[in-house]
C-alpha cells in the first residue's frame, strides 16, 4: 500500500512530463455544435412533451368537472346513482361465500353472484325506465 505522505514530495521528472502533455489532446471541432444542438433539441422536445401533458391533464380535468354538472341537469340521470348503488362488492362476496358454504368452487360462485347482481341491476333499470 502506498504511503500518502511519500507523494507530497516535489514533482518527479515523469510527473513533470505528464503535466507538460496536458494540452496535447484537444477537443474535436464538431463537439461543441454537436453538444449544443443535441441539448437544444432535447430541451425543446421535453418542453413540447410537458406542454402536451399539461394540455391533456387540463382537458381531463375539464371533462371531469363538466360531466357531473351536465348529468345533473337531466332528470333520468339523477336515478342512476340509486340504481347503481346496488353494486356492492361486499354483497357479491357474501353471496359467493354462501354458495361455497353450500359446497362448490369459489371462483364459479363469484361468477354466479356477479351474474345475479347484473340481472338485478338490469331489472331495476328496466323498471325505472
Amino acid at each position, binding site marked *: 500500500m502506498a504511503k*500518502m505522505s511519500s*507523494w507530497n514530495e516535489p514533482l518527479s521528472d515523469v510527473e513533470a*512530463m505528464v503535466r507538460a502533455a*496536458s494540452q*496535447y*489532446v484537444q477537443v474535436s471541432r464538431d463537439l*461543441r455544435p454537436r453538444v449544443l444542438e443535441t441539448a*437544444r433539441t432535447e*430541451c425543446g422536445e*421535453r418542453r413540447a412533451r410537458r406542454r402536451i401533458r399539461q394540455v391533456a391533464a387540463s382537458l381531463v380535468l375539464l371533462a371531469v368537472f363538466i360531466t357531473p354538472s351536465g348529468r345533473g341537469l337531466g332528470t333520468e340521470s339523477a336515478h342512476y346513482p340509486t340504481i347503481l348503488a346496488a353494486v356492492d362488492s361486499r354483497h357479491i362476496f357474501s353471496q359467493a361465500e354462501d354458495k361455497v358454504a353450500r359446497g362448490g368452487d369459489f371462483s364459479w360462485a363469484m361468477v354466479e353472484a356477479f351474474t345475479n347482481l347484473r340481472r338485478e341491476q338490469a331489472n331495476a333499470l328496466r323498471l325505472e325506465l
Partner: protein
Amino acid sequence: MVSQSQFAERVQECTDRLTATGVDALGALFDLTSHRLVRFAVAVTRNQHDAEDAVQTALVRLAGKPELLRPVGAPWPYLLRMVRNEALLVGRRKQRCHATGDLIDLVTFCPVDELEREECHRAVWSALRTLPPEQAEVVVLKIWEDMTFAQIGQILETSPNTVASRYQYAMTRLTRRLAGQQREAQRG
C-alpha cells in the same frame, strides 16, 4: 494558469447560470470544461470518439436536468463523476481494446514553440494508454486536475489509500515505459 479552486468557482458560476437560464448557458460551461472532461474521459475509454460521446451525453443530461446539481456542493467533481460513469457505460457497450497505446484516434495540437517536445507528449499519451483505466484516471485527476487523493477517492468512490496505491503503480509503470522509450529514441 488558473488554480484548482478558481476553476471550481468558475464551474460553479456556469452551473448556477445553467440552472437559472437553462440550455442557453451550456455553451459557457462547455467552453470552460470540455477540454478537461474529454482528456479525463479519454483516460477511461482510451478512445477519443467514445470519450467525446461520454462528455456529450453528460453535458446534454445536465442541460436537461440542471436541478441534478442543486443538492451538490461542488459541481466540478460531480461533473467529472458523471462523465466517468458515461465513459464506463460507453466503454462497456463498445468493448474496444486499446492496449497497444496507439494514438490514431486522438485530435492533437502542439504549439510551434513546443514542436520539439511533441515526441515527448506523444510518448506520455502513448504510455498513459497502456495503463489500466483505473490507474490512468487517477494520474489524470492527480496531475492535470491537481486533486488530492481524498478528492479523487470521492469521484471514483473508493478510499484515498486505494487511490494512492493506484497512483504509485501507475507512476512506476509510466517511469519504466517512458525510460524505455527514451532509451530507444537515443539509440535510434
